[in-house]
């Protein structure tokens, strides 16, 4: 009973701030001292789906960038996490610290240099350029998550599989990946959400030509259309929530690692 009321409390505290947003997105003006708006409208949501607001365009760009970033950081993070988590080699601790630097150092400090390099490479203002800078924070997170996953991974399973006749590729697809799937889901969740919410790096490197959802939101915030801003803000939360729900579904079936270690 106590537990249940506690959960309800948590949900209320987490979701209460969204209530005004929801009201705003359906309100035709909402002014003091009205407790609730006098008139309701779907106008903001219609505006949101119309091409002129560029919200759908931003949503699709954000989605594309976040997915590509997630896949690329997985491709880097899996081998890197395995190397650091399983193997012993000189300079391992230094490498771990080095991995953290993109998280520690503010992107503001490095943006000038990054932009300079990307302009010379002709990548400034391109989707690829934005993906590349998104990888800066996502790769460290992904690698750290997967490092601790692999640190708790018993490579004996792989030895066992090979002695039963599995080729290295079969070991990867039939044993290793299924066993670390929960860790991959957590890492992918991190990477996706970081990329999805990234503003500053996209703003500078995208140079106005790469128009992601945070860009849309930023532009709208300056415009002062509270109703549309609220609708976009709600929209921007949805993919994260969906991803989290899917992830928690996947993590529930986590019989493999007993959680994903000490992430």
């Amino acid at each position, binding site marked *: 009973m106590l537990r249940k009321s506690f959960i309800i409390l948590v949900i209320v505290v987490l979701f209460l701030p969204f209530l005004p947003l929801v009201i705003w997105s359906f309100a035709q003006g909402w002014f003091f001292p009205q407790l609730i708006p006098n008139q309701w409208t779907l106008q903001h949501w219609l505006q949101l789906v119309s091409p002129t607001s560029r919200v759908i365009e931003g949503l699709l760009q954000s989605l594309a960038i976040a997915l590509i970033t997630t896949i690329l950081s997985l491709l880097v993070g899996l081998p890197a996490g395995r190397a650091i988590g399983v193997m012993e080699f000189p300079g391992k601790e230094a490498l771990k610290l080095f991995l953290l630097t993109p998280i520690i150092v503010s992107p503001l400090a490095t943006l000038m240099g990054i932009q300079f390099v990307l302009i010379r490479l002709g990548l400034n203002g391109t989707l690829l350029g934005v993906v590349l800078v998104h990888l800066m924070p996502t790769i460290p997170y992904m690698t750290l998550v997967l490092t601790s996953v692999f640190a708790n991974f018993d490579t004996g399973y792989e030895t066992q599989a*090979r002695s039963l*006749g599995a080729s290295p590729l079969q070991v990867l697809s039939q*044993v290793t990946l299924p066993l670390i799937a929960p860790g991959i889901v957590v890492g992918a969740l991190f990477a996706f959400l970081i990329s999805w919410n990234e503003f500053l790096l996209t703003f500078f490197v995208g140079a106005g030509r790469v128009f992601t959802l945070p860009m849309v939101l930023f532009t709208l915030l300056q415009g002062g259309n509270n109703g549309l801003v609220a609708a976009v803000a709600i929209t921007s939360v949805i993919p994260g929530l969906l991803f989290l729900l899917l992830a928690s579904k996947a993590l529930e079936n986590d019989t493999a690692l007993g959680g994903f270690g000490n992430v």
Partner: protein
Amino acid sequence: MYKCNTHPQSLRPHLHLQELTKQFSGVTAVQSLWLEVQAGEILALLGPSGCGKSTTLQMIAGVVQPDSGTITLNSQILNRVPPERRDIALVLQRGLLFPHLTVGENVAFGLKMRGVSRAERDEKAIAMLRQVQLEGFADRKPSELSGGQAQRVALARSLIIHPKLLLLDEPLSALDANLREEMQDLILRLQAQTGVTMLIVTHDQAEAVVMSQRIALMFEGCLRQVDTPEQIYRQPCDETVARFMGGVNFFAAEAHGRQWRSNDLTLLSEYDHDGCVQVTIRPEQIQVLAEGRSQANTLPATVIANRFTGTQRRLTLAIAPELTLQAWVTPTQDFRVGQSVWAYLPPSALWCFPHRTVPYPVQVP
């Protein structure tokens, strides 16, 4: 030392290790090891932890590459063969059932890797599970199994691929004593049914004795003695081996043929030897008598300690000022501490090896 077997029999599985050496960052784990395992044989690789026995196993399985030396199975040199093509199955201490698969899928794993159809796989897996007395467990998850059941599934999973060689790395040390005996019986029964050649790595000398036809005793990366369990018990090649096999009685003597002199006593043995020797006798071989009889090797003694272990009574006997021996007798034979008794050391049980003044550096538990 190594003779190539040219019999037609050499087509049957037959493992040769020649000059196998492995170092880990400068520390020698295995030192030029020679070993032959006959087809259908059960050999135990026995030794204290860290003696290199697991490394040897891993080299045979192909998980670890030897620095030098060759591994030959069935006249085929395995050094460059990847583990999945060696036809050598491995059962590890932890069982390591794949937690994302059901018990049935675990057992069928090796067949799946070989491209066997699903129907055939399922059928064989169920048959294999029946053989390890786990009928009806196919749809369970490994997390629902007890330690003993998991180990039986691991065994079934390895045997289903009909390996040329089955390697067991401390397969029973995670189980409790009663279960262990049950599993020993099961493994021996399965071995008899399948005729698979088996190499068991263990640090438990009792287990090695029960399970194997021959024991290869290993200390510090080197093989010390390879013999039948009985020979290793009765005729250890040195004091380290004797101590590892549970020997407790050691004393120096001067041997002249079959007459060995120690502490003003003359003992008769069945074995010829000359010079300074270290004599040993198994504690359970010494007979303790309440009344003396005039027979060689029957010595007056005083009981100075009497410890009851349930299955045995462990007596400590003072025979001479510098000579105390342990005698393990049946619990029904009870003696007071301080009682004068007679100890009979059967000549066939007295064994010796050349005396060594420098003790072996090996720590024996």
